[in-house]
Every structure is written in structure tokens, then in C-alpha cells.
């Protein structure tokens, strides 16, 4: 029987190349013309412990990974204990016969083989990839080609190991008859990569960040690509330096973004408010993980919504949006950078580890992204005022050097030229000028995708962020439920959501103990008839979520 959806789990110690094998399996599936979703689960440590990768793939789009697998590859004993119950009926368990003996399943003497060919522990992962490839009946030459592209170091040894695997697993070769397609359905990108490229496509000039899981990979990716992209990438002493440098950079005319997770972004709050006051365009990538505080750093959660919506003392317009998968991440990152420059406000792209660090089949078109230039001043220079009052609230910009005037930005309340004021009338005037931009942003949002509706059904499963991915996968197996994703969270697109919901029953799914997203919906006047919450640091498993949706809609 030709199999469409296939899920593979590879588990092992950190340092055994688990993530790498997950990646190579994804690439293999992608090359076979299949859509892929890969989730990597790893604790906060560098070696030892337990890592695993889950790769779900299919010839039609797969939005999130499944926790029940067709094939489970266990590189160590712990993996067997942790994952064996996740094997589906008729599935295959491959394990390291040097550390454990099991009845059902295929034992491969991984350690011995590696020793025999004088390999390194990392090669356990290679064995796993080869086992999956064999089980899926992939031709050896095809696999060899994949290896060539992905194991530049130690290629021969890796190929030799693969040959041993194919040899040993001859009987099971092709046990899973995979549906394939002629062409690759897209490129494999992690969410953070898509975000980084989206911002780059909208003209990001400078990226400044201090590492923090799960935002760090944006920094790493851009640092790596900075020469290619013509971008300055800086890693300064603290998050406080990050954002204050970023404001200086944007003041000087460079499109600038910063990124962090909750704790690091918390340190940026003071200057985020400065961005609001000084009307300095700033894009923030806030990659969320389970909190509070250090929390569970390498896992996923949506507990930072209220925090993201309300950062910064005082009142000022800002934009908060949250994408679901890589395609949208690319588009919305580009859009956000354009918006913060158009409206001269700070904006937050709120995301989670589940998007940021998962690999997805992606099809994006960099050419489709336009770079919106900010409103630039072209009046008489001697009349220039950085904070000129306008109907839209948007004051035309200039960037030094300009001969003939000065550009004065300020953290204090100020007059139109940027000079400090404490006068009641001027305070009111400037607050109102800034607040007019809120209105302008709302108007602009009417032309943008602020709420997305997927599928049809009389009931609406309302989500935001990467939980949308779990939802999309889950509703494949639930009748009469569409998914409605709120993309813009502030300003809140109530008009668009109203239209999307059009009176249907609302079920809210989110990764939060207190139901922050549900509360947000309620505070905007939307009724919620049921909710589904999870807060164990893991994304929803689609079948489990499907069951909970069914329960909630009965």
C-alpha cells in the first residue's frame, strides 16, 4: 500500500548527531517530492541527555509533526524507553543493538560498526538515516547523492555505514512504500531563517542581538550570511546595549532589527518605550519559550502574549504580529519591517520555538517583497522639525548628515523640533500626534492580511502563532471546523476577526495556562465557547488536539 503521511522519530544522546539525522531525513523526503515538518526536541545541555527529532512528511502539505511514528530509530537505550510506545501498529523500531536488546524491532550493532570503520559517535545518526532510507525503499544511489550533499566530512565512512545498514536490513527494504513526486515541493527552512530572510528582503541593514534560545539562530544565520546580504550583524555586551544601539542605528537611517526571548526582551523594555517616544522605527523578534524566568529554555509555549502586547511604560502606538509557518513568517517579517518604517513605531514579531526552530517545506519569492521607503522630508530645510505635526501623525524623516538643518530625537516629551517641553498644551499636542498614528496603522491594516481563515466549517478554531500549525494539521481529521488565525495582535483587527468568525462558535486553542489569548479575544468583545490549553512546553500533537476539538465541539 502506498503510504502518504509518514512520521519518523530519531532519538539519542546530545552529541550523537540526532538533529543532523533529522535534517538529512527531511532533506531526503523533500528530495522525494514530499512536504516536510521537522521538530527537534532537545534539553538545555550540550552533550548526553536525550535529543530527538520528529520528521513528518507527505505529498501534501504537513503543517506540524505527529508524535506517533511509523519508524522510530533509537540510538541509545533511553530513546527506546522514551519512544517505544509511540510506534504505530505496523511500524518499525530500529535500535542500537550494542546497548539494548528488544524483541520486536531491528537491532543494529551501531557502536560496533562505527568502531569497525573507525568512525565517530556522531555516525550513529548516519546509521539512523540509512535505516529509514532502507525501510522506505529509497535506492541506494539516491541516498548516496543525499549523503554527498550533506556529509561533506567523512563521506566515505558514512556511505560505508549506510551500505552495512542496507545489507543488514535487506528483508525490510521498502517496507514503507512512499508516495513521491517528481519535483521538490519547496525549500527547507526553519522559522527563524524565514523570519531573517523576510526582514532581509524588506531591506534589513543592521541586526543586533545577544544570544538567547530560541532566538539565537536568527543571529547565527544572519552573522553567517552578513557578507552575502550586505548587512552589519553585531553581538554586543547585553540586551540593553542591543536595543540602545539599534535605536541609534535606526536614527541614522539603517533599517534595524533586534531579537531575543522573554528574559532578554524584558531587559529591553525601557528602550522599547524610548522607541515609542522618539518615534524610532524598530523591529523586534521575540521568540518565546516557556517561562516564567529562565523557565524551560529549549521548549515551546505562548505565555508571553500579554507581556508582548504591553511592554514599555507610557502610552504609544506599536505593532505586534505573530506568524504561523515559514511562508507567513517570511512575508510578515518583511511586512513588519516595512510597517515600522512607514509609521515610525516599534513593532514586535512574536513567535515561538515551535516555529523558529522547526524545519518546514517553504516556498517564498524574495522578488515579491517590496521595500517601503519612509516618508522623507522635502520642504525648506530651515523649517524642518523631526516631530512636525501632521494629520496622519507621521512626521517626515531626515537622516544625518543633512546640511542646513538638524535632526533632534528625544526621550523626553518634546516640541516639534525635538526640544524638551513640560508645558501642558505641548504635552497634549504630542501625545495626540503620536496617537493619530494608531489610527493610521489601523487604516493600513485594512489592506493587509490581519486574520487568516483556513478551510470551511461552521465552527471556528481560533489560534495565533505557531499553534495555528498544530491546528491546521489537527482539523484535517475533524469535521466542520475551520481554523481562524489572528495574525495582528496589536492593533487588534476586530473588524477582520468579526468577518472571519461571522457568528460561528469559537474554540480557542493556545499554549498557555492562564488563557491569555482567550482573554484577549474576550476583552475585544468576542465570545468563546470552549478552550483548549496546553502548557507542558510542547506543541500540540495533532491527533490529540483533534480529539480535544471534537470533545469541545460536542
Amino acid at each position, binding site marked *: 500500500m502506498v503510504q502518504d503521511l509518514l512520521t519518523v522519530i530519531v532519538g539519542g544522546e546530545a552529541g550523537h548527531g540526532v538533529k543532523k539525522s533529522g535534517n538529512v531525513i527531511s532533506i531526503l523526503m523533500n528530495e522525494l517530492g514530499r512536504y516536510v515538518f521537522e521538530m527537534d526536541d532537545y534539553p538545555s545541555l550540550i552533550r548526553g541527555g536525550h535529543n530527538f527529532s520528529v520528521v513528518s512528511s507527505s505529498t501534501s502539505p504537513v503543517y506540524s509533526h505527529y508524535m506517533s511514528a511509523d519508524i522510530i530509530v533509537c540510538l541509545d537505550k533511553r530513546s527506546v524507553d522514551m519512544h517505544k510506545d509511540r510506534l504505530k501498529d505496523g511500524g518499525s523500531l530500529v535500535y542500537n543493538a550494542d546497548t539494548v536488546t528488544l524483541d520486536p524491532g531491528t537491532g543494529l550493532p551501531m557502536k560496533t560498526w562505527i568502531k569497525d570503520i573507525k568512525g565517530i559517535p556522531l555516525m550513529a545518526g548516519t546509521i539512523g538515516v540509512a535505516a529509514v532510507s532502507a525501510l522506505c525503499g529509497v535506492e541506494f544511489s539516491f541516498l548516496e547523492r543525499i549523503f554527498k550533499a550533506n556529509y561533506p566530512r567523512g563521506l566515505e565512512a558514512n556511505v560505508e555505514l549506510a551500505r552495512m545498514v542496507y545489507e543488514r536490513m535487506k528483508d525490510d527494504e521498502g517496507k514503507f512504500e512512499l508516495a513521491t513526486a517528481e519535483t521538490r515541493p519547496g*525549500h*527547507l*527552512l526553519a522559522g527563524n531563517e524565514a523570519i531573517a*530572510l523576510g526582514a*532581509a*528582503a524588506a*531591506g*534589513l*541593514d*543592521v541586526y*543586533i542581538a545577544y544570544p538567547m534560545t530560541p532566538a539565537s539562530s536568527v543571529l547565527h544565520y544572519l552573522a553567517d*550570511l552578513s557578507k*552575502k*546580504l*550586505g548587512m*552589519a550583524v*553585531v553581538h*554586543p*555586551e*547585553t540586551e*540593553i*546595549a542591543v536595543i*540602545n*544601539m539599534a*535605536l*541609534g*542605528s*535606526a*536614527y*541614522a*537611517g*539603517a*533599517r*534595524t532589527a533586534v531579537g531575543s526571548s522573554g528574559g532578554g526582551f524584558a531587559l529591553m523594555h525601557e*528602550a522599547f518605550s*524610548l522607541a515609542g517616544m*522618539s518615534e524610532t522605527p524598530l523591529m523586534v523578534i521575540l521568540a518565546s519559550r516557556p517561562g516564567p524566568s529562565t523557565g524551560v529554555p529549549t521548549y515551546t509555549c505562548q505565555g508571553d502574549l500579554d507581556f508582548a502586547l504591553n511592554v514599555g511604560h507610557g502610552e504609544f502606538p506599536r505593532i505586534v504580529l505573530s506568524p504561523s509557518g515559514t511562508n507567513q513568517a517570511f512575508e510578515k517579517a518583511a511586512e513588519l519591517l516595512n510597517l515600522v518604517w512607514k509609521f515610525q513605531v516599534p513593532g514586535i514579531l512574536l513567535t515561538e520555538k515551535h516555529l523558529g526552530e522547526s524545519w518546514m517545506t*517553504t516556498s*517564498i519569492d*524574495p*522578488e515579491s*517583497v517590496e*521595500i517601503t521607503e519612509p516618508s522623507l522630508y522635502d520642504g525648506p530645510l530651515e523649517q524642518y522639525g523631526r516631530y512636525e505635526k501632521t494629520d496622519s501623525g507621521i512626521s517626515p524623516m531626515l*537622516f*544625518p*548628515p*543633512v*546640511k*542646513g538643518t*538638524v*535632526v*533632534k*530625537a*528625544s*526621550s*523626553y516629551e*518634546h516640541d516639534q523640533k*525635538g*526640544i*524638551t517641553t513640560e508645558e501642558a498644551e505641548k504635552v497634549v499636542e504630542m501625545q495626540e500626534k503620536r496617537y493619530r498614528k494608531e489610527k493610521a496603522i489601523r487604516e493600513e491594516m485594512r489592506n493587509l492580511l490581519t486574520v487568516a481563515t483556513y478551510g470551511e466549517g461552521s465552527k471556528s478554531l481560533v489560534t495565533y502563532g505557531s499553534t495555528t500549525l498544530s491546528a491546521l494539521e489537527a482539523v484535517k481529521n475533524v469535521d466542520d471546523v475551520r481554523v481562524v488565525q489572528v495574525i495582528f495582535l496589536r492593533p487588534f483587527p476586530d473588524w477582520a476577526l468579526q468577518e472571519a468568525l461571522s457568528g460561528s462558535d469559537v474554540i480557542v486553542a493556545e499554549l498557555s495556562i492562564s488563557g491569555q489569548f482567550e482573554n484577549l479575544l474576550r476583552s475585544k468583545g468576542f465570545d468563546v465557547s470552549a478552550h483548549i490549553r496546553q502548557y507542558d512546553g510542547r506543541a500540540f500533537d495533532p491527533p490529540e488536539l483533534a480529539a480535544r476539538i471534537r470533545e469541545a465541539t460536542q
Partner: protein
Amino acid sequence: MNLETYAENTWCKGCGNFGLLNSFKDAVNELVEEGALKAENMVISSGIGCHGKTVDYLNLNSFYSLHGRAISCVSGMKIANPNLTVVAFQGDGDAFGEGIAHVIFSAKRNMDAMLLVHDNMVYGLTTGQFTPTSDKGFKGKSTPRGSIEEPMNPLALVLASGGTFVARGFVGKRKHLVGLFKKALLHKGFSFVNVLQPCVTFNNTYSHFRENTYILEDEGHDPADFQAAWDKALETERIPIGLFYQVEKPTFTDLLLEDLVPAERRKPPSTAISEIISER
């Protein structure tokens, strides 16, 4: 050049900030006249405190930043556009308390920026608390029975952090101060000028500094000699002012940017991005 603005000056009569502001204006004017500096290329930034008002009083591009962060703010400007000449005006509470990390790292990475500290050894604007440079025993509002901490030695700290231009000035020696500012503005790399600035209201140190400062340049100090600079930085009986140390080193932005001027983007990035994606 007219460096005045219409902002009302609200410093106390006799405040050391006047001397500082005027010396800075003189330095800029002289350099502009000498053709060594373009005023439109300058951007200044300040922290929050009495010192911070400087940016309101100078008709130059400016960013009135946060308490302690001006040097980070101008560092960002320099990264965006290395053609700018950037100066941070900070207070002693500002630079050495709230913002000390940024001072150390600006020195460490030889950020091409000038940091000018209005060191009045007191928080002026918040009405008189002790700061990192206040003497032990200083009675401020948060230490009514006297500070119990030894004062910080900012020059020693910046030297220990790799500063490439380290100087101390005194507003009571205006000409000398103007000279220091000019050198600092021309220095390629991080230039640190700690200015002894009496606060007549909360910490009037005019006579103390008038009596106890001496000019390094008068005593043959060699600013190329690191050990001599260190010794002078530790001197406390008499208080040396002048250029303690100067050395040329590659700057952060030279090494980071090479020929890139991020604020002046030319070619659209889509081609590069398409290439990057195609590899995945």
C-alpha cells in the same frame, strides 16, 4: 557657526556645565574653521541628568537618550553610518553607574566615538545622591550618614578596559579643556574625557579642584606610555588633568564594516536571498 538653540537654559547659576558647554562649542567651532570637522556630520547624544540638557542647548543633530545609554546610542549610529562623528555626553551617575557596562565595552571594542562625562560626583538632576565617583563619607539624600563606598576611578577602569584615548579635564581650565575636546574629537577610536564639573548646588568642588589640579602637559607626561598613564590615573594627592594615554588601534566599525555603509543601501537584497534559498 551658531551652535545655539532656542531652548531656555535651566542650569543653576554658576554650574560647571556652562564651562563645559562653551568649551565644547569652542572646540567644534575651531575644528570646523580648521576644516577638520563638518558640523552636519556630527551627532550627539546624552543620558538623563543635568548634563543631558546639553543636547537641547546645542544646534547639532542629537538623540536625547536614556539614563546611561548615550554611548550605546551613538555606537549604533556609527555602525549604521561610519561617516558620522559621534559624541556622547553623560553624567557620572549615568556613565559610571547605570551605564558602566557600555563604557567598558566601548573601550574594549575601540568604538570610534567620543564619550564626555560631566563628572560632578553627584546626581544633580535627582537632587543630590552619591554617585560612583563620590567620596567616601559623601552625604547625599540616599546616604544621609555618608557614603560607605570607596569612589570609583573611571580613568583606571577605562585604561584597564583597553581605552585608546583617556583624558581628564576641568571646567575651571577652559582653554586646556577646549584642547582636550579637539584632540578627542579627532581621535580615531574610543576617546574618553572625564570632565571635573562642579555642581554648585549639591557638590561645589570649584575651590578643591582649582587648588589641587595640575596639567599633565606641563610636566612632560608622555601619553604614549601606558604605565605612566596608569600611575597618573592612580594619583590622588594632586589631581592631574590632561591627556593620560593615547594609542592608535583599528576601530570596531573599520573591522566590522570594511566598505559597507548600512544606512546607504544600494542594491536590493532579493537576488542574494534567492541564491541563499536555492541552496536549501
